C-alpha cells in the first residue's frame, strides 16, 4: 500500500488527549481487523508515513515497535514492517473478567433482567467510543 493511500486509513485527532502513537496503534489494529490491511502486506516506511501524515517519525516508530511487541506486525530486515500472518488472539485480562463479573453480579442484585443488562452494556459501548471520542 502506498503511503498516500495508507494515510486515508488514519484519522489522527490532536484534540482528543489520546497520545498520537496510541491512536495509530488502535487504528492500525482496526484496519487489520477490517481487512483493509492484509496479511503479509507491507506498511510504508517510517519516513514515508511520517511525511504523509505530517507527524514526528519517532511517533510512528514507537507505534510500530509496540505493534511488533504485540505480534501484530513483524519486522523484516531490508523490507520493513509487515502485517503478521497469525494475528494474536485478543487476550481478555483478569481485570476485565473481574470487572465484568462484578457488573453482572451487581446488576442481578438490583433485580435487573438479562435483557436490561445487555442493554446497559450496549449503551455504555455506544457512549464510550474507541479513542475516547465522544459521540
Amino acid at each position, binding site marked *: 500500500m502506498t503511503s498516500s493511500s495508507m494515510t486515508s486509513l488514519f484519522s*489522527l485527532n*490532536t*484534540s*482528543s*488527549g*489520546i*497520545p*498520537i*502513537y496510541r491512536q495509530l496503534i488502535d487504528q492500525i489494529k482496526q484496519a487489520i481487523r477490517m481487512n483493509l490491511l492484509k496479511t503479509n502486506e507491507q506498511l510504508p516506511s*517510517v*519516513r514515508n508515513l*511520517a*511525511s*504523509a*501524515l*505530517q*507527524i*514526528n*517519525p*519517532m*511517533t510512528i*516508530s*514507537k507505534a510500530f515497535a509496540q505493534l511488533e511487541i504485540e505480534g501484530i506486525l513483524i519486522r523484516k530486515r531490508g523490507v520493513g514492517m509487515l502485517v503478521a500472518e497469525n494475528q494474536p488472539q485478543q487476550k481478555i485480562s483478569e481485570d476485565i473478567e473481574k470487572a465484568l463479573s462484578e457488573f453482572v453480579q451487581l446488576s442481578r442484585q438490583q433485580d435487573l433482567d438479562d435483557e436490561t443488562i445487555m442493554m446497559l452494556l450496549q449503551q455504555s459501548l455506544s457512549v464510550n467510543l474507541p479513542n*475516547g471520542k465522544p459521540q
Partner: protein
Amino acid sequence: MSQSTLSVIEINNIKKSYKDKNVLDDLSIHINAGQIIGLVGRNGAGKTTLIESIMGLRDIETGDIKVWQEFLGDLSQEQKEQIGFVQQDPIGFEWMRVWQYIEYFGGFFRGWDKAYSERLLEKWQLDKKSRIADLSGGQQQMLQVIQVLSIKPKLLILDEPVAHLDPNMRRQFLAELVELTCELETTVLFSTHIISDLERVASHIALLSHGKIEHFYELEKLKESAASLLFENEIPETRQFDNLINWQSINNGCKAIVAKPNGISISQMEKQLDISIQSQPLSLEDWYLEVTNETNS
C-alpha cells in the same frame, strides 16, 4: 533514526531585560541532536527574545549560550552555514524577484540545494518571477521557509513559521519539515501558537513563562500524564500531589488537573488515596491553557 544525545543548544542561566522588565530571567534549556522542540508561551513571554539570543542577535546580560558545544563567536563558518533561521520580521528585499532572492541567499550556504528549492517553489506554487513586494504575507513566509529548508540545515530555528499560512500550506510545510528531519536528523526549535501542529511534529514541548522554561517535556510522556480528575468528595489530600496543576472544588466534590511526566502517576494516586479515580485525558491545548492561565488558583 539514531537517538544521539549530542548537545546542540545549551543555554545556562541567561538573563535579559528591557528597561526594568526581566524578559529572560535565569533561563536554562538543553536541546539534544534530533529533537524537535515546540516553544510555546503567551504573547510577550519572550519567545522571540530567546530565539534571537540563540542566534546572537541580542546581547544577554548573564549566563551563556552554546551551539554544538561552542560559544556563538567560536562557531566555524561551516557550522554557521548549517543553521537555518526564519525570523518573524517581514522579508524585506521587496524589489527582488522570488528567484533572485533564493539565488542570492542560497549563495551564502555551501549546503544549498538549488534543485530542491526549485522543486519546492513549484510544489508550493510560488512564481519564480513574482516580485517580493507583490507576494502576500503568507507567500513571503513560504519563500523564507523554502530558502531555509533548501540549505539543508542541521539546526533549524523558526520563529512562528506558520503564523501566516493557511491550513493546507501548514500541512505541506509540516510534511516537508518531517521529511527533512528524517533525512538529515535536523534539530529543530520552533515557536508557535498552533498547538495542534506542535503536537503532530514535535518531540518535545518547552513552555516559556516568567522568564524561564517552566515546563520542558517529551510530548508523548506529557500526554500520557495529563488528565482531568473528578472526585465525588472534596479530598484535601489531592491538593498535595506533585503532579497537580490546578484544583477546584465543585459542590461537594472536586476537580484536579494533573500533568507532570516525572510526578506521581494516577494509579499511584489511587493506591495512596485508596479510591478509584475518574480521569479524562487532557488535550495538549487544554494542558497549555491550564498551565498558562494565571487567574486559576
